[in-house]
């Protein structure tokens, strides 16, 4: 009897003591542990949506958390999903970012995985993650060849299942966010074939006229001959030529209006009519600060004359290219 009693007392005491020690340890490490988790989340979010300054969190279900990324003005620049799914050897936890229309993937980060080192865990390698940038979900994967379509990525040789798992998790996350946010991807502007130059509707002509007037306030009359808009002031003097230019940006077509002076020596300015560049990155081509650089530049434009936007080199250079294309076209047509 005495022995049984002692057994119970000793074990209980040890357990109570252990409980106290662990509670103390837990309380003193809890802040750091939470901070680490928070940091990991924030770092991943900034990697998938680089313009993020602030974010809001919403739990969608047990596996998926939605992060709403905002810029410094509180504007929503995109959505990220922190989610998980089955890989080849265990769970893969990742974060995937989308633009604010859920049309394009802005980035992918692998948070946790236990895939085979050297094979499956190559899903952590940059080249694999970067493939997802600007892809249009749902994603499919191709094996052993370069991806061609805008929804394709290349699977890792020897780790098809791990690659496929990531694709599956990304697509599932996209679907979940779409349902949760009730965003219909077909409402975005860049997917449909953009109308050809010369087949403009009245509404488009109106926006073009407004854009020209904004560039040159003294505009009184605009006459359109073929593809060239001839701009005249109130005295009926020609003050410039304007033309529409279309080119490939980073995500899709960029449509701009360019205005040249009458001698075709200088650029008076440009205005963006349409684009679907990545919000917060490529979309900075719309910033007046960037666009003002084009004012009064000698034609044809040289790349060195324009400071490209950090992180949006392709979008920026694309504009220069479009301007020069329009310039060549107008020059040729005026010679006729």
């Amino acid at each position: 009897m005495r022995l049984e009693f002692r057994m119970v007392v000793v074990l209980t005491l040890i357990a109570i003591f252990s409980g106290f020690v662990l509670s103390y340890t837990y309380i003193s490490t809890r802040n750091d542990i939470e901070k680490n988790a928070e940091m990991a989340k924030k770092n991943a979010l900034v990697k998938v949506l680089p313009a993020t300054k602030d974010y809001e969190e919403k739990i969608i279900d047990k596996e998926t958390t939605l992060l709403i990324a905002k810029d410094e003005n509180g504007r929503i620049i995109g959505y990220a999903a922190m989610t998980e799914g089955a890989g080849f050897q265990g769970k893969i936890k990742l974060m995937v970012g989308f633009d604010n229309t859920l049309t394009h993937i802005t980035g992918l980060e692998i948070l946790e995985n236990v895939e085979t080192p050297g094979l499956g865990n190559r899903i952590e390698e940059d080249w694999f993650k970067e493939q997802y940038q600007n892809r249009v979900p749902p994603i499919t994967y191709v094996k052993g060849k370069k991806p061609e379509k805008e929804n394709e990525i290349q699977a890792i040789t020897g780790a098809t299942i791990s690659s496929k798992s990531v694709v599956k998790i990304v697509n599932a996350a996209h679907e979940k966010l779409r349902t949760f946010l009730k965003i219909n991807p077909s409402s975005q502007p860049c997917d449909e074939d953009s109308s050809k130059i010369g087949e403009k509707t009245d509404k488009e002509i109106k926006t073009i006229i407004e854009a020209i007037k904004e560039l040159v306030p003294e505009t009184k009359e605009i006459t359109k001959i073929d593809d060239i808009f001839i701009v005249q002031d109130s005295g009926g003097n020609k003050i410039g030529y304007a033309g529409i230019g279309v080119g490939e940006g980073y995500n899709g077509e960029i449509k701009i209006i360019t205005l040249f002076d009458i001698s075709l020596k200088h650029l008076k300015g440009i205005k963006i009519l349409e684009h679907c560049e990545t919000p917060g990155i490529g979309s900075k081509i719309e910033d007046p600060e960037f666009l003002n650089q084009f004012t009064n530049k000698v034609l044809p434009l040289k790349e060195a004359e324009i400071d490209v936007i950090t992180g949006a080199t392709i979008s920026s250079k694309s504009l220069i290219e479009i301007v020069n294309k329009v310039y060549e076209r107008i020059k040729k047509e005026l010679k006729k």
Partner: protein
Amino acid sequence: MNKKHSLGYDFIKGLFKENPVLIQLLGLCSVLAVSNTAINSISMGLAVLFVLFFSSFVIGLIKNIIPSQVRIPSFIVVIATFVTIADLFFKAKFPDISKALGPYVPLIVVNCIILGRQEAFTQKNPLLNSLFDALGMSVGYIIVILALGIVREALGFGTVFGFRIFGSWFHPLIVMILPPGAFLTLGVFVGLMNWISSKRRA
């Protein structure tokens, strides 16, 4: 009762003669699993050192009041306490290492080296001897797991502690960081150890 040895002997025996990994072949699960890089190895080794030392200390203090019928559960509770402390500490201060070690830190609870030392040594020996025994065993464990980690990382990644040691001509042997690499390397180590001991005896 074991016959008493000097403190020095109790420390030294863990390194070679009674090395927990190479001679006793204990705690192999973690040795095989996390020895793929040197940094993981040393972290795991230090965690084992911490748990073994303090478990031996506490159990050495209270061994006389524990009825022998409940000694195993008592030992396990004490060990689990220190393991959890180590785990929380890694998570708080070294999140990357904690991620790399995965479940193997919590699994120290069932590492036979720890419980084995309590059963085989701490129980029957004075506190001070137990502490030296714990240190010796831990250092013996660290030496082996670190050696494994260095060899596997060097051959499997071409680096040691993250520093490149081979030129660009080196093609990493991925098998070395996979489970087979662990078994191969450990096998070679155990073989070498046996060969050395047999030479000595002869």
